[in-house]
């Protein structure tokens, strides 16, 4: 069912957890469906650009949820916000060597979580500005 890579990431997810003083938090999903992700981001300025310094994701969920959660972090870290916000579920699934069709919604959730976190960061910044 799952690719070897998915199982590997599930077994050793590097980017799950949370960030204490996160610059943005994205909360997506519905716990009763077993699908829920909270994405924490830390943003830094580099060469006048806003770059994702760190991403951590909390998830209550199945193998694919954990693997995609960690993978969205892996892909996003070091990227500029504009680039990061454009990450698609396909990018995540590809990195994992493919996902079963019925598990693509986990990938979507990770993407949405990251987007929500970036938007949260931007909202906060706007208000602070």
């Amino acid at each position: 069912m799952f690719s070897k890579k998915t199982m590997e990431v599930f077994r050793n997810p590097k980017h799950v957890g949370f960030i204490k003083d996160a610059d943005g938090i994205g909360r997506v999903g519905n716990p009763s469906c077993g699908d829920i992700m909270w994405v924490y981001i830390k943003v830094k300025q580099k060469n006048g650009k806003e770059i994702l310094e760190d991403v951590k994701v909390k998830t209550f969920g199945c193998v694919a949820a954990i693997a995609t959660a960690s993978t969205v972090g892996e892909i996003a870290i070091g990227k500029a916000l504009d680039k990061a916000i454009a990450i698609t579920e396909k990018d995540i699934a590809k990195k994992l060597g493919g996902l079963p069709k019925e598990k693509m919604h986990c990938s979507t959730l990770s993407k949405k979580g990251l987007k929500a976190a970036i938007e949260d960061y931007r909202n906060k910044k706007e208000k602070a500005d």
Partner: protein
Amino acid sequence: MKLLKSTTKNTAVNAGDVTNNTGNYTMTKRVYLDHAATTPLDKRVLKVMEPYFSEKFGNAASTHFFGEEAEEAVEKAREDIAKAINAKPGEIYFTSGGTESDNLALAGIMRTGKKCEQLVTSNIEHHAIIRTADSLKKEGFETKFLSVNKKGFIQIEDVEKALKKKTRLVSVMHANNEIGTIQPIKEIGEACHKKETLFHSDAVQTVGKEKIDVEKMNIDMLSASAHKFYGPKGVGFLFKREEIKIEPLMFGGSHEKGLRPSTSNTPGIVGMAKALKIGIIEMDEENAREKKMRDRLVKESLEIKNSWINGGFPKIAGCAPLGFDFVEGQSMLLMLSDKGIAASTGSACNSEGLLPSHVLTALGLPRVKCHGSLRFTLGRENTDTDIDYVLEVLPPIVKKLREISPLRGK
């Protein structure tokens, strides 16, 4: 269920092995705690099956000595099985397993009747019952699904209330496969018989594990599957009282009095009878042993905070249906599997992604809690050492998953 497209093979079963090298890809320990899904074939059972593979291999319907010795074996098995549940040999029909027995019982009875008649069953039945009932509804029959209480039991009053003139059959499982609860079958059967309604019980989880007496328990039809009691896969039986007429599911030769055509699976049938015999002889002792281990597993697992046990008692001896808040079952399963422990979440027979088990939702468990269920079902090969090992491995897994779960602060 396939987890990985390619994996390292682990062939040794060393449930008793105490080595603790539990690296992800090199399990040296395998602890099977999923006996409600299926059981290993008892070596003593395989032994009695062996002559029927390549020597006494005849077609039991053939007119010669090869056929004769096969038929003798099949009929002896029928007698033994009948005796084991206090039925007559002519009341035992061999099938391919629990699913077929359930289908044959339900569709077989309903299809002899009128379309306006009703089938009453429960909402914690196996899919082999629930989906057969759904399909009969599509055919035009009426169906009613009884609810269970929070502990997972059918109330007799509910059965009594449900029994209408149009009720042709009531089907209630003996023990549930997910939560192990043993239903008051005798009383349900009595209520049915008072209203002259037929009573079927899916006893797939109890045959060979709990005492069954179809007379005393007021059972008119009963389903069983050999692989659930250390017999071979692909064979089961249906008990059906002589005086009850049912329609076959399949048509062909006149095997099993035409009710279940197809060349008799002699080794499977012989094996099933032997497995049942062993189950009955060793029942009391084995149940006491499993119960002791199970009770310890439950007690010490529940020391993990925010955990619970699904369904009340009486339960089948080896069944420990636990639940842990804030974490998801499949992830627990796979982390346990990496440590060499086989368990299950939801119903092992039909894992359909994250749909919560219909049994757990029937108990009134919130969906999110359903996802955190973890079922251990003990069996003959398990020892105290296995339980020690689970109790060593399980808490860190729950902890690890909780740490990354958004449902809980810490």
